[in-house]
Each structure stands twice: as C-alpha cells, then as structure tokens.
C-alpha cells in the first residue's frame, strides 16, 4: 500500500526530451556515410593490391587522408549510436544496460581515436 498520489508516481517518468537530437544526428551521420562508404569500398580494392610503401604514398595525398579520417570518424560515431539503440532494445537490467552502453562508447571512442591518430601519423610523414 502506497500513500503516494498518482501524480507523484508519474512525475519524472517519460521522455528526457533528448530523443530528437539523437535521432537527427544518427541520420546526419548516415547521409554523410553514403558517399564516404562508396569511396571507402573503392579504396579498399585499391589498397588491397598495394604494398606497404604504396599504401603510405597513397594515404599521404591530402584528399585520401581527409576522406579516410572522415570515413573512419563518422563510421565510429554511427556505430556508437546504432549499437546504442540495439543495447537499449535488448538489455533490460539497469546495471547491465549501463555497462554495455559505456563499453560501446569506450570501444568506439578508443578505436576511432586510434584509427585517426594512425592515419594522421602516416599522412603527416612520421612513419
């Protein structure tokens, strides 16, 4: 038996009013990825037949380095927001959900930062 009024149990529940921002940013990344992924698939084929030195030469072109950084960076943003929705749909307990969401964010952040730093290192001539 609870002495709380129906209004007090209902307060604070419901939307956090941040859903639209997530929804729109997910689509903005998706639109950007349409041309980037086509370029990325083409680049994978080109890179597959190059050896290390040709690949380094290729990534030193500012256009290739820029597009590669954008493709990787926006892909990791999109991966994070996409898997976040999957986790929110299938993981029910609060603690497990929080752990999965954090792991998703950290994996995407770490892999994205490592990938971009690696591209920049080679492109800027440190390799």
């Amino acid at each position, binding site marked *: 038996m609870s002495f709380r009024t129906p209004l007090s149990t209902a307060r604070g529940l419901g939307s956090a009013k941040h859903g639209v921002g997530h929804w729109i940013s997910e*689509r903005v990344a998706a639109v950007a*990825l349409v041309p980037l992924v086509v370029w990325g698939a083409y680049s994978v*084929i080109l890179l*597959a037949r190059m050896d290390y030195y040709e690949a380094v030469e290729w990534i030193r072109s500012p256009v290739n380095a820029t597009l*590669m950084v954008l493709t*990787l960076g926006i892909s990791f943003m999109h991966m994070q927001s996409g898997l976040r929705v999957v986790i929110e749909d299938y993981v029910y307990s609060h603690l497990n959900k929080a752990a999965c969401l954090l792991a998703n964010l950290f994996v995407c952040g770490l892999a994205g930062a490592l990938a971009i730093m690696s591209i920049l290192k080679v492109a800027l001539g440190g390799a």
Partner: protein
Amino acid sequence: MSPHLQVWRWHVTMLTSILHRVTGVGLYLGGLIAAAWAVSLAAGPEAYETFKAVLGSPLGKFVMFGMTLSVFYHLGNGIRHLVWDFGYGLDIKSANSSAWAVFGFTVAATLATWAIAFQIGAL
C-alpha cells in the same frame, strides 16, 4: 519479444528490418578491422604485411566478402530508411518492392566490387 514473433506470417519487410540490425552489428566488426588496418599501417611494414596476410587468407577473404554484402545491404536499406523518414514509400506495396530492390542492389554491388577487385589484380 514484441508481439508473438512466432505467430506472424514471415514477410519480406520483416526480413529487411532484421537484416539491417544484423548487418549493422556485423559492420561493427568491420569498423574494428578498418581501425586495425590504420594501426598496422602506422606500425610499419612488418605489421602491415601481417595484417594483409591475415585479410588475404581464405578466412580473411570470406570475412571480407561478408563485409561487402553487409556494407552494401546496410547502405541500400539505409537509403530506403532515409526515404521513409521523409514520408515516402511507406505503403505496403512500395515497402515490399523497395525491399526486393535493396536485395538486388546488394547482390549486384557485391559481385561488381569483387569483379573489379579481381580485374585490377587486388585478389
């Protein structure tokens, strides 16, 4: 599980919806492979040759073929979703035919990509 998955008659728009998630999660691995590529490039010639040997092995090629299918499916179906977001093509007939169009695009784009890769000697 939302309403009684087992009592629904299987239809193509269910399959496209599920495959969008499955390929999305699969491409998560693809993103990590791309990051590993960048890291191995920065690590130097030996690491890069090791990375290339792993991806060039039969298992590596099998995984990359799956990634090619996944990336073109997710791309095609993603565009289908973006069109829906503008309010077009939401009726059952259009949704069914766009589903088949996405399957056609996936197969055609995957075969074309591997044919070009073979032609230029990338395999």
